[in-house]
């Protein structure tokens, strides 16, 4: 995904509607894209005027909004609209655990995240005022999708006027192969770590060669932890504003019981998350 022409937002008349919409409008304008609002449910005059009221308070959209009113099962309706309208990006709001500063993805949004054919932006803190995006963290996994993901994050950082991108390479314990038992194996492990780090850096650098990233400072950081989970932890410590991840290859029922990769992030969102498909 390196073009964003059409952005879809689900409209549910909840207290979060206003910040969600404001955020969506802002993103649309930044990408010069068309906003499509989908409401699953009955179309009433009150809902329509409420919506207009909110939109009139927001920034002026560069391209007019298209609203779709349709009744049915929310997940299905939205998924169909995504295909019909050839949506590039789906914006979803996250939920917050009561009194805990922790965010997670609700059941509908989770289904959408798994099934949607377009990229997904999960917002944990939509706000009415613009919060500048200052730091984007991207995964640099060894994966076919990674190049696309890094390209997308560079695109995002350009449009969101973010100057700092960190590409995180997660080095898992199994890759290390040497188990640390005593001084000798520790020395060996340290050397191998350094080698792995250089190898990963080189791989990412090769990807970056083909990407125009002028005016953006791109850094590389290798972290040691569990794949998929630790990058969220890192984003939280570094207080990144956006975490960009590859889409999972395929997620079965087992993956939900024994969560890995993206499932960890969904159960505890560290920040806004963009899943690139």
């Amino acid at each position, binding site marked *: 995904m390196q073009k964003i022409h059409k952005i879809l937002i689900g409209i549910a008349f909840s207290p979060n509607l206003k910040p969600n919409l404001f955020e969506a409008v802002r993103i649309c304008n930044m990408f010069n894209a068309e906003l499509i609002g989908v409401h699953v449910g009955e179309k009433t005059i009150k809902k329509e005027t409420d919506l207009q009221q909110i939109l009139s308070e927001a920034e002026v959209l560069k391209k007019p909004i298209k609203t779709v009113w349709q009744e049915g099962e929310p997940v299905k309706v939205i998924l169909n609209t995504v295909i019909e309208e050839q949506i590039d990006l789906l914006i979803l709001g996250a939920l917050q655990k009561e009194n805990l500063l922790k965010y997670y993805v609700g059941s509908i949004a989770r289904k959408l995240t798994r099934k949607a054919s377009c990229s997904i932006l999960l917002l944990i803190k939509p706000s009415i005022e613009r919060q500048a995006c200052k730091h984007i963290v991207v995964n640099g996994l060894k994966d076919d999708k990674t190049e696309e993901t890094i390209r997308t994050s560079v695109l995002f950082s350009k449009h969101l006027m973010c100057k700092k991108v960190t590409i995180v390479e997660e080095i898992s314990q199994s890759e290390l192969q040497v188990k640390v038992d005593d001084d000798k194996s520790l020395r060996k492990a*340290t050397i191998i770590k350094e080698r792995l780090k250089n190898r990963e850096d080189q791989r990412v650098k090769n990807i970056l060669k083909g990407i125009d990233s002028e005016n953006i400072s791109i850094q590389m950081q290798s972290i040691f932890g569990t794949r998929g989970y630790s990058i969220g932890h890192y984003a939280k410590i570094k207080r990144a504003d956006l975490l960009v991840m590859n889409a999972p290859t395929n997620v079965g029922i087992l993956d939900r019981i024994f969560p890995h990769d993206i499932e960890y992030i969904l159960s505890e969102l560290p920040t806004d998350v963009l899943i690139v498909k």
Partner: protein
Amino acid sequence: MNKKNTLKTFIGEIPRNLFSGFVVSLIALPLGLGLALASGAPPISGIIAAIVGGIVVSLIGGSKVTITGPGNGLVVVILSAITVLGNGDMYQGYLYTLAAIVISGILLIILGFLRMGALGDFFPSSAIQGMLAAIGIGIFAKQIHVMLGNLDAKGSIVQLLVQIPEGIFNFVKTDNSSMFYAGLIGIISLSIMVFYSKIRNRYFQLIPAPMWIVVLSVGLYYYFDVFSATDYPIDKNLLIALPNDILSNFAFPDFEKVYQLEFISAVISITLIASIESLLSIKAVDKLDPLKRRSNVNKDIRALGLATVISGFLGGLNVVTVIARSSVNVNNKGSNRSANFFHALFLVAFILLFATELRKIPLSALAAILVFTGYKLAAPENLKKVFNIGSEQLLIFIATLLVTISTSLITGILVGILITFIIHIIINKNVLLFIKNILKPNVLMFTEDGKYYVSVKNFSSFLNYTKLKSKLDQIPETEEAIVDFTLCDFVDHSVMENMNNYSETFERKGGHFEVIGLDDSKPGSEHPFALRKILPKHRVPKKGVLTKRQKFIQKISEEMQYSYEAFSDLELEELPNFGYFKTRKIDKVSNVLTNNDCTIFDVQFSEGEMIAKQVIKATMLHIHTKNKLPKFTLDKEGVFEYILHFSGYKDIDIDAHPDFSKRFYLSGKNEEKIRAFFTDELILFFESNKQYHIEATSVGLLVLSNERLASVKEIKALAYFGASLKKIIEKC
């Protein structure tokens, strides 16, 4: 070349290891006999374990200066196994138990290969302490009767304890001279054990206390035999029985009961205790090693397992790593594994050469050695130590101890774990914190400016400690490591204790290990190992207990002649004037260090409001300047995130210093004044020091590096940087 050198050192160190091995064998001989007797097994089985252990583990083990042999912890378990499996027939029970020992050895080998040797890491430390104390009481209760010459005391540990006054009374009133003399030797032996360390005579100290007991009691026998007209008053059943032909009379394990429940439970207990005792000893001995080597625990467990299997087949007890004999080894300058090997060889020699003499040792003398060991394990000082850490730890300790004494070891340790967990839930008033997060990988490690940074999330307790441990073990101890608990809601005593151990090891090996993020937490007590629960924001403890970091800060504040205030109400008036705090709300300032106009502090502030609110803690330096400054920000070129509020102003390049302009991003409103302010000297200073983010208002400077709490070392660097900067600016 390297290998040659190692060989050379090895050969060069043989004499001292030979000597050290000899001294250790002097202790191992009486202890091996005594531990076997206390376990209800033939005395020779303890010696077999020590010999096999010394040879096998020294050849294939993973530690350097440890000594292996029969262990204290196993006495109670093996005794109960022999009693239960034998159903009254002690010798048959011993054969069944040998089978259990062989199987537990195989289990240990498997655990070693699965890298699960560190079973002990899964248990809360107070529960382990309680269990060890229970073992101590078990040994004490049984052996005190033997020490007084009474072999017939029977019953549970509690019953045996209750019988002690009666036992003493019987001993005083007895008209059985055999029993009286045995008891007398026992009491004299005990007093040798107790007062040995207090007598600081070089010649007396040449022989270890247990060997004195052996020498004296054998000497007594020969006195009666050669000089005295009366016969040796102690009856033969109160003397050690050794088989006549030691080399050919090996007992062989009986595997008949392998499928029975009581057999399996014996195997589990033996394996559990063997693993815990060995692990604790290996860890403790590593701290003593003058060459600061790190033992390969899993390799050692595998070697111990193999040694146990062999020992079991030859009729010997379990082989574990033992702390007391290992410390003697280190004290006598044992420097490599050959000391363990020589100790085994000396034992073989003793057994072959002095079997006749050894048969003259009264059981009561050996029992005295064990009474002393048992007392040491269960000493009231331990109780006090645990209480100092926190009353909840005392509860765990006592509950584990009582349950272990009244039921069995396995039940005891399970109850200990359960109680610890329940207490953690009660303290946090939150079950979900544990249930939801227990399986999550909660530890992240990465290197940052050459330092290892480890962040722990959610909670950190004995339940998930291995995750943290596996990361920490990968850090070379010569490096600098920072462990950050800021994202943790709860840290328990076991983890705090282990953090302290790491910190000691790093310090010993020339590295640096620091724990941060606990300063706002509420400790369970004044002890440095007390568990800590992170307090909700805004509740500043007015009179709290300082964390280790705070104590260090206090110490360096004295060194640097700064005044220190840990819990301060101070809201720095000038802080909100800085651009950095325009969009951030300051909650509180703590750990304030001041020296005339330089102030270093931890500040807690929040970004955003309501659901977008994030709380951040960071260490910063504020300098109050006397001369007026132009407003500017100075940053590493490339880090744009701090300077949003200045956007629109370009990077001010100073032509005379292209390198400075390339590395730093300087911006501000009044370009002319800023150019004038940045003198050559100031630029040189910035170029030659660590790059911080620096912001200036007209009367002050704000200096910070990362947006997190700084370690004590970083604080020192920051203070030094600030003092030098201030000097230069004041010259301008």
